[in-house]
C-alpha cells in the first residue's frame, strides 16, 4: 500500500499560462514542475521564469509545501493595499484520505474476490489517486498563476520571497493559539456582519452584488456537493462493471460453447464499458464539478472583498460621527477632520477598485463556465458515442 501512495511523482503535462504572451519586463511565468508525496506531506517544486528586475535571477526554483501557499495567501489578504481586490482563493489542502480509505476497504475485502478482480480494482484506485494528485498540483499552480498574471500582485514582495527564498519559510502550521486566534477572528467577522446589516448601502450596484453573491455562493456550494455525490456514484457503477465482467467470465468457464463464447464476449464488453464509464465520471468531475468548486471559492473571495468594503464604510461612518462630535464639542477638530478624510478616501478607493474587480469577476466566470461546459459536453458526447459503437459492434456480431 505504501509504495504507491508515497513517493509519487506527478509529471506536469500542461501549464496554465495566464500571462498572455509576456511583454516588456514584467514577464513572470510560474509552474509546478514536480511534486512529491512524502509521508503525508506534499512537496511542490515551484519553478519560475522571469525577466522582472526585482528578481535576482531569471530562472530559479524552490520547494514549497502546502502551508507555505497558505502563508502567502494570508499575506495578501492582510495587506491593506490589496483590500480592494479579489484575492485569488487559496488552494485546498491535499487530501488523500478518501483514497486511503478506499484502499483500506479494498485490502480488507481482498479475500472475497478473485485475483483478477482485486488487481483491476487496485489499478482503478491507483489511477484515481494519481488523478487526485494531479488535481491538487493544478490547484496550487492556478493559484500562483493568478497572482503572477495580476499587474499589481506580481510585484508583491511576499510573492518574491515565496518564489525565490531557497530556505524553508519556517511556516509552521498554525499552533493552537493561532488557530484559536483565527477562530476568534471569524467570530468577530460574523459579529461584524450583524453590525453591518444596519449600515445602509446606498449604492445600488454594491447592494445588488452583495445579495447576488451571497445567494450565488450558497447555491453553487449545494450544486457542487451534489455533483460530487453524482460522480462518486457513477464511479461506483463503473466499479460494479468490473465485478460483473469477472462474474460472467467465471460463469463462461463452466459453460459449453456457444453459450460460453457469448458470456465471454459479454464479459469483455463490461470490461471495456467500465473504462468508458469511468472516464465519463472523471470528466464530469474535472470539467463540471471542478468549475463549480472553483467558483465556490472565488465567490467567497468576492464576498470577502465586499466585506472589507463594508468595513471601510462603517469606519467612514464612525469617523463621520466622530467629526460631528468633535465639531459639537469643539475638541480635536483638526484630527477628527483628518481621520474622516482618510476614512473617506479609503472607502472611495476600495469602492472604485471593487467595482472593476466585480465586473471582472463576472466576465471571468462567464468565460470559464463556457469553456468548461463546452469541453465537458464534447467529452460526454465522445464517450457516449464510444459506448454506442462498442454495443453496436457487439450486437452485430451476435446477430
Amino acid at each position, binding site marked *: 500500500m505504501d509504495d504507491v501512495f508515497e513517493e509519487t511523482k506527478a509529471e506536469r503535462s500542461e501549464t496554465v499560462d495566464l500571462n498572455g504572451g509576456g511583454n516588456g519586463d514584467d514577464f513572470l511565468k510560474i509552474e509546478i514542475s514536480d511534486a512529491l508525496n512524502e509521508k503525508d506531506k506534499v512537496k511542490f517544486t515551484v519553478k519560475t521564469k522571469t525577466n522582472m528586475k526585482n528578481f535576482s535571477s531569471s530562472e530559479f526554483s524552490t520547494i514549497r509545501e502546502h502551508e507555505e501557499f497558505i502563508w502567502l495567501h494570508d499575506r495578501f489578504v492582510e495587506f491593506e493595499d490589496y483590500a480592494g481586490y479579489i484575492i485569488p482563493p487559496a488552494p485546498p489542502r491535499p487530501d488523500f484520505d478518501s483514497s486511503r480509505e478506499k484502499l483500506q476497504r479494498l485490502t480488507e475485502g481482498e479475500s472475497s474476490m478473485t485475483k483478477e478482480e482485486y488487481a483491476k480494482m487496485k489499478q482503478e484506485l491507483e489511477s484515481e489517486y494519481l488523478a487526485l494528485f494531479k488535481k491538487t498540483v493544478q490547484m496550487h499552480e492556478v493559484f500562483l498563476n493568478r497572482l503572477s498574471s495580476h499587474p499589481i500582485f506580481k510585484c508583491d514582495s511576499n510573492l518574491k520571497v515565496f518564489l525565490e527564498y531557497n530556505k524553508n519559510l519556517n511556516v509552521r502550521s498554525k499552533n493552537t493559539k493561532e488557530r484559536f486566534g483565527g477562530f476568534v477572528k471569524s467570530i468577530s467577522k460574523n459579529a461584524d456582519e450583524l453590525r453591518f446589516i444596519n449600515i445602509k448601502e446606498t449604492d445600488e450596484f454594491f447592494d445588488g452584488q452583495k445579495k*447576488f453573491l451571497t*445567494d*450565488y455562493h450558497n*447555491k*453553487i456550494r*449545494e*450544486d457542487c456537493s*451534489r*455533483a460530487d*455525490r*453524482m460522480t462518486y*456514484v*457513477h464511479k*461506483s*457503477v463503473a466499479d*460494479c*462493471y468490473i*465485478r*460483473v465482467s469477472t*462474474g*460472467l467470465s*467465471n*460463469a463462461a*468457464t*463452466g*459453460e*459449453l*460453447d*456457444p*453459450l460460453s463464447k*457469448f*458470456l465471454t464476449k*459479454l464479459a469483455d*464488453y463490461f470490461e471495456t464499458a467500465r473504462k468508458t464509464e469511468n472516464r465519463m465520471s472523471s470528466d464530469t468531475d474535472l470539467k463540471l464539478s471542478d468549475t463549480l468548486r472553483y467558483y465556490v471559492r472565488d465567490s467567497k473571495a468576492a464576498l470577502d472583498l465586499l466585506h472589507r468594503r463594508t468595513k471601510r464604510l462603517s469606519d467612514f461612518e464612525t469617523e463621520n460621527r466622530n467629526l460631528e462630535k468633535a465639531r459639537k464639542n469643539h475638541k480635536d477638530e483638526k484630527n477628527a477632520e483628518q481621520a474622516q478624510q482618510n476614512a473617506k478616501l479609503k472607502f472611495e478607493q476600495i469602492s472604485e477598485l471593487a467595482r472593476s474587480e466585480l465586473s471582472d469577476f*463576472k466576465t471571468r*466566470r*462567464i468565460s470559464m*463556465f*463556457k469553456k468548461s*461546459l*463546452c469541453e465537458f*459536453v*464534447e467529452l*460526454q*458526447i465522445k464517450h*457516449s*458515442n464510444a*459506448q*454506442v459503437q462498442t*454495443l*453496436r459492434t*457487439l*450486437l452485430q456480431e*451476435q*446477430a
Partner: protein
Amino acid sequence: MASTPPPETDEPQTTEVDLGTNIDLEQDLSAEKPAPPEDMFFSTISDPEPKKQEDMDELFRLNKPMNEVNLNEPEEDDDPFSFSNNNSSPKPPNEPSIQPVPATPVADVKEESREEAQNEVASANLSESLKSPQLYTRNIEEDDEEKDKYLEITLSEPHKIGDGMGSYMVYKISVKTNIAVFKNQEFTTNRRFSDFLALFERLKEKHLPAGRILPPAPEKDVIGTAKVKMAKDSEASPIDFLEKRRSALERFLKRLAAHKAFRYDPYFRDFLEISDELPKANNTSALSGAGMLKMFKSVTDSVTKIAVKMEETDQWFEEKSRQIENLYAQYKKLHSVAEYLHTWRKDLAASTKEFSKTTAILANAEEQLNLSRALSHLGEAYEKIDQIYLEQANSDYFLFAELIKDYVCLFDNIKEVFFQRIKTFGNWQKSEETLKAKKESKAKFEASNKLDKVPAIMAEINEWESKTAKAKEDFEQISKNIKEEIKNFDLNRATEFKTQLTKYLETLLQNQETIVKVWEQYLPEVKAI
C-alpha cells in the same frame, strides 16, 4: 409409475460425442420432443413497460392464426407421468454406460415416421414461422405434435381485495390456447399468491420423482406482503415489489406452459381454467401442518444426502453433477453482483436527479442571462439522463438479475432432481437386499428342512422380485428422464441467455444513444453563452 420404456432404448445407437463438444446446432433434430414454445418462451421477459408486452407475445406466438388447430391430435394422456406417451418419446441417451452421452440427440427415424403420420397439419410453413423471429440459431427440438400448439399466458397488474391484515392481492391470468384439452380458447381467471405456491407444491410432489426439472417457485416475502396489506386504498402500494412479483409469477407460469409434461398436467389446467376462487391453500403457509411436514422431510433429506453414497456407474451423471454444482456457485455470485449493479444504478439515477435540481436552482441565481439559460438547460439535460438511468436500472433488474436468479433456482431444482435419482437408486438397492435376504431365508429353510415355511417365503420372494424389478425400472426411467430434461435444459439455457442478454444489450445501446442525443442537443446551448 410408468409402463414399459419405449423400445428405442434397446437400439444400439451410440454416437460417442463427449460433453465437451459444442452443441452442434446443425444436426437433424426433426421429430424431437419438447415443444417449440419452450424456446420461444425463454426469450421473454416481463417488462414494466406495457407496450413491450406485444413484442413478447409475438415471440411466443408460434402461429398467429388459430385455425391451424390440429383436430386430429392423438389421444393425449392426461397423466404426464406416462413416460410411454407417444409424443414424449425420449431420445436415445443410452442406458447407463461409461461413455458420456451425446449432448445432441440423435435422430430416430422410426419416431419420425410415426409422428408424421399422426400429424395432420403441414409442418413446412410452421417451421418457417418458428424460425422467423429468432435472433439465435438454436435448432429447436421440434415435436411435430407440439409445435403448432400454443399456450400463452399473461399476468396483469394485481388488485387488492379487502383491507388491512386480511387483504390480499389477486392477479388476473389471461390465457390463449389452441390445445384441445382446454375448454375454451381464450379465458381468464383470478388467482392469489398462495394459489401459485400450492400449484408448485402439487406439481413438485408429482413430477419430482419422475426427474422433471421444475421452474423456480415464486418467493415468499413477508415484509413486502405486509407493506402491501397495510397500504391504504388511497396510497400507492409499493410498486416495485408488486411489479417484481407479478413478473416472477408470470415467468413461472410461462415456463410451466412451455414444458410438455407440465402443460398437460390436470393440476395446471385446473389452476388456469377454474373460474372460481380456489380453496385457500393453507398448506403453503410455513406454520401449517403441511409446512411442518415439509420441514421434517427436508431435514431427513439432508441427512440422507450426507449418508447415502451412491456408486455412480454412469459417468454422465458424475460429470453433469459436477458441472451443475460449479455453475450453481458461479451464477449465484453473478446474481449478487447483478443486484449490486442494479442498486448502484438506481442510486445514480437519484443523485443525478438531485444534481439537476440544484443546477436549476443555480441557474436561477445566475445573473448573466446566457449563462443562466445554459445552466438551466444543463439541469434539464440531467433530468432526462436521470430518467434514462432509471430505465437502465429496470433493465438491469428484469433482464439481467432476474434471469440469473431464475437459473440459480433452476440449478438448485436440478440438484434436487439428481438427489431424487439417488434416492430411487437407494430404494432399488434396498429392494435387492431384501430380496436377497428372503432368498437366503428360503435356502436356510430348505436346508433345515422347514419345508412348511417355504411356500410363504416363496410368495414373499415373488413379491420382492417384482418390487425389485419395478424399482430398477424406476431408477432407469428417472435416469433417462433426467438426461432428457437436462439436455433440453442446456439447450434452452443457451437460447434464453442469448436472447435475453442480447435484449439487455439492446436496452443499453438504446439508452446510450439517447444520452448522446441529449448531449448533442445541449451543445449549441453552451456555445451560445
